[in-house]
Each structure stands twice: as C-alpha cells, then as structure tokens.
C-alpha cells in the first residue's frame, strides 16, 4: 500500500506543505521587495485588523447565514435532481437532460449575474411581463434586502445543481439492479424503492461531501457576491470576503490576505473535525 501512496505524498509535501511555511507572512508586514526574511514581524496585527470595526459582527453573521442557506438548499438540490434523473427509464432522454443541466456550470459569474440582472431589474423581463400581463408596477427585486440572500442561493442552484449531480449519478451507477428487482418483487412502489435503496446507496458519499462543504463555511464565493452587491443590500449582503476586499486587500496586501485565509481555514477545520466526529457517532464513516 505504501507504494500506492508514495508518489501522491511527494506531491503534497512539495507543492502543498512546503509553501505553507510561507503562510508565516500573516504574522509579518510582508513586502514583496524585502522578501520573507526581511519583512518585519507584527504578530497578530493583521488578525486584529479583521475585527477592528464593530461592523464585522454583522458581516460574520451575514457570512454564516448565507453559508447555511446554501447548505440547506443548494446542497440537497443536486441529490434530488440526481435521483430524478436516475429514475428516467429512457437512456437517450436521460443523457440529453444531463447534458443540458450541466451547461450553466460553464458560465462565469460575470455572465450569470449579468443574466439575472437582465431579468430582475426594474425594466427587466420579469417586470415587463408582470406589467403586461397583470398590470403591476415594477418591483425593484435587486434593491430589496430581504431578497438578496435567497437570490444568491437561487443563482447558485441554477448554476451548479446540474453539474453537481455528476458525483451522485456516479455513485448511483454502482447500485446493483438486482436490489431493485427484488424490491419490486416484494411489492415496493417507486418512492419506497428510492427511499430504501437509492438514497442509502449514496449516503456515505453525501456525508463526506457535507463534511467537506463545512470546511469552507466562511467562503461565499467572492465573485458572485461582489458582483451582486449594491448599496441597498450592503447591510445584509456584505460577507467576509467582500468586507476584507473593501479593507484594501486589492492593494496587494498579501499579509492581510493570508491572515484572513488562515482565519477562515481554522474555523473550517473546527467544523470539519466536529462534523467528522458526529458522522462517526451516528454509525457512519467519517473522513478519517
């Protein structure tokens, strides 16, 4: 077994672990010109900078709420879609549908946000339709704070659900068809078959994916949020990534960027370790 593991291990050591030594710049005032050695040590200064503004509490709340909304809705969506696709009995139809639902994944956020804006802006398509069919006044969807987070989740669902079904479909491909036949012989209907055979087959995969997802809980996808942010929704929409952006991270402040990254990673680590323990307690397999 060691032979199998060795090449990969070498890769991890060289290209992942050695660079991690460089993460020390989070504790220095790193200057690209001075380099690692000669940049002065500043201890926790950059970490403190994250928290120096009372606004950061709201920002962290926004970040966590958005993340949990994503996990609650955008995480299960591909499972549902995968099960639905799995139940299609005509192979050609199944393949065509699959190909189509994968498409949005390939668009960049610039394009996706642009598309949603075309639909939802005050003179956009949806409002034009409402005006034409129902005579309603135009609704400024994009200006409403209460809709902001749900809209972000909806966008992610639209963009990523199709693509995310792949992993579940691959897991479902490994299910023994004899199990289904036996269940039908026992008189089980469609839904019961899904509940007792299909879902348990992907259970371990779902658990692993969920644990991994928790590791990135403080990540919300900077590009998407940044493109969608506007003054009206700033209070509910400013998340950690955009908050630190406005603190000048763009000005190549690598020390600060690394400090924020470390902070996020530590929080992620705590959640992953916790979730892993929980998974094992419930009789499953954790990651380690």
């Amino acid at each position, binding site marked *: 077994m060691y032979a199998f593991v060795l090449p990969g291990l070498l890769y991890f050591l060289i290209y992942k672990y050695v660079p991690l030594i*460089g993460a020390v710049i989070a504790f220095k005032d790193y200057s690209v010109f001075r380099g690692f050695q000669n940049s002065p040590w500043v201890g926790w200064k950059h970490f403190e900078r994250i928290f120096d503004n009372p606004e950061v509490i709201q920002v962290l709340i926004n970040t966590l709420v958005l993340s949990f909304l994503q996990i609650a809705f955008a995480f299960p969506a591909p499972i549902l879609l995968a099960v639905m696709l799995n139940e299609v009995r005509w192979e050609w139809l199944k393949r065509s549908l699959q190909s189509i639902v994968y498409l949005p994944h390939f668009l960049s956020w610039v394009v996706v946000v642009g598309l949603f804006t075309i639909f939802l802006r005050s003179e956009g398509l949806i409002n034009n339709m409402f005006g034409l069919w129902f005579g309603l006044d135009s609704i400024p969807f994009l200006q409403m704070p209460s809709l902001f987070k749900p809209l972000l989740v909806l966008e992610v669902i639209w963009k990523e659900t199709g693509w995310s079904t792949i992993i579940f479909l691959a897991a479902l491909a490994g299910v023994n068809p004899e199990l289904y036949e036996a269940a039908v012989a026992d008189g089980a209907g469609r839904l019961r078959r899904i509940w007792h055979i299909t879902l348990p087959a992907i259970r371990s995969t779902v658990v692993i994916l969920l644990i991994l997802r928790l590791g990135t809980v403080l990540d919300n996808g900077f590009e998407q949020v940044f493109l969608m942010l506007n003054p009206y929704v700033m209070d509910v929409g400013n998340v950690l990534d955009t908050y630190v952006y406005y603190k000048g991270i763009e000005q190549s402040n690598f020390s600060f960027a690394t400090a924020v990254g470390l902070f996020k990673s530590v929080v992620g680590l705590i959640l992953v370790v916790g979730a892993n323990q929980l998974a094992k307690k419930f009789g499953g397999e954790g990651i380690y």
Partner: protein
Amino acid sequence: MLYRSVTDRCFDAVNILLLLVTAVLMFFPFLYIFSVSFSSMRDFLENEFLLWPKEWVTDAYRYILGNNRFIRSIWVSAVVTVGGTFLNLLFTVTMAYGLSRPFFGQRPLIFMVLFTFLFHAGIIPTYLIVKETGLIDTLWALIIPVLISPWNLIVMRQFFRNIPEELTEAATVDGANPFKIFSSVILPLSKPALATFGLFYAVSHWNSYFTGLLYMNNPSKWPVQVLLRQIVIVNDNTALLEQQGYVQAPPAETIQMAAILLATVPILIIYPFLQKHFAKGVMLGSVKG
C-alpha cells in the same frame, strides 16, 4: 418484466415534466448568448433579450478566429487538459486506492490531505516553489502544481471504500498481490468514478485561468481562459477612458459572447463520450454467494 403500476406511470410523468422544466430554465440563457454572438451591435443595443438573431452577423467570430492567438491558446489548453488529466488520474487514483484500505499510518495521512484542503499557502509561496522546481513558463506549470485535488482525492477514496471487502478478499484468496487486485478488481468496478473525476479534472484544466496567468510569461503559451478573460473583462470604466487605440475599439458584447461560446464548446463535446461509463449494472454479478 417489471410490473408498471399506475402510480409508477404517474411518477414517471411528473418526474419527466419537472425535469423538462428544469432543463428549459437552464438552457435558454444559452440561446441568448448564442444569439448575441451572431448579432450586430445595433440589434444588441436595441433588444434587451434576444432569443434568436434578427440578422446573422459573423463579425464577432471572424474577429476571434481570425486571430491565430485564439487558436493557439485552444491548442495549449487541449494539450494541458488531456495530458494533465491523465496524470491527475494516475496520481489521484493510486493514492486514493492506497488510502482506502487500512494500514499503519493511514489515518494521519488522510488527515494530512484533509488539512491541505482547508489550508492554503497563498500565491506567493506557491509561485516560489513552482519557480524553484523550474516549471515557470513551461506547460508543466499548469499540470504539476495541481496534480492532485484534495477534494477529488477524498471523495474518490470514498468510492473505493464503498467497494465491498468480499471482492478484494476473494482475489487475495486467489493469490493476487495488491497491484493485481487493483488492476483486475478495483479499476474495472470504478469506471463511473474514473469517468467522473476524469471529467472534473479535465474541466478544471480547461477552465483554469489564474495559473496560466501567473506561471506563463509568454503570451503564446496562454491557455484559452486567459485569452477569454482578456476579451471579456476589457469593459472596465478605467480601461475605456484611457484607450487611445488607433485600431478597432475593444471587443464589444457580441464578441464577448462569441468568445464565451467558443471557449465552452470543446469541453461540452467530450462529455457525451464519457456518458456511457455512467451506465448502471457495473456491480452486477460480481458478488457470488
């Protein structure tokens, strides 16, 4: 012959209806992109949302394809995607299999991998390692630093763990060594997984732009997404203000849409070839008694 009850048929009908609605919702923005890419500037300005070109204009495509830089970048991306994906799978599959069976030191090792999933060093230290190992400005810089994705490794390992012990035990009883077990038992059963992760790696190579930007100094070695970014992002207020170009104005929206389609299409083409590996019944008949 399976008995199809009425409820079964109802289920089918509803299921397919919902799936069709979903598919339509996910597809028709592409019609928009397609239409804009074949439209004139005037048609684009006049119509908020084109679903079909009013007048077919191929200027955008001629602008992009006429520039041999675009073709070159497609070639770069293709080479990196094919070669890179093969190496990705080679390294990931072996390590994932290695970590899927218990042995001394396995738990710390998998935790190590998990750790790299959570903790990243940042672009400067990574760049320095890439430089020190002599990869800058070679295509290897787009392959080796991303040889194994921790996420892919962890999930693939899970697939291997899900292969029943009875199968590997049966092979061991027959006197096979780990390599033989790997090639004749594990691999054939993992076709869906291999196809899946192969696709993930391939798409990740095809879509990557930041590594290309950072590690490639020579524009002739830029992968396609770097070029695409150059075309699409130019619509910046600052950029427009200071342009003093003597030639064509920076690319218009029509060109951006064409660029998006052109960069996406190649990867969409390989997908159907991989689909057959997702077929059911792979485990059929493998466990006897």
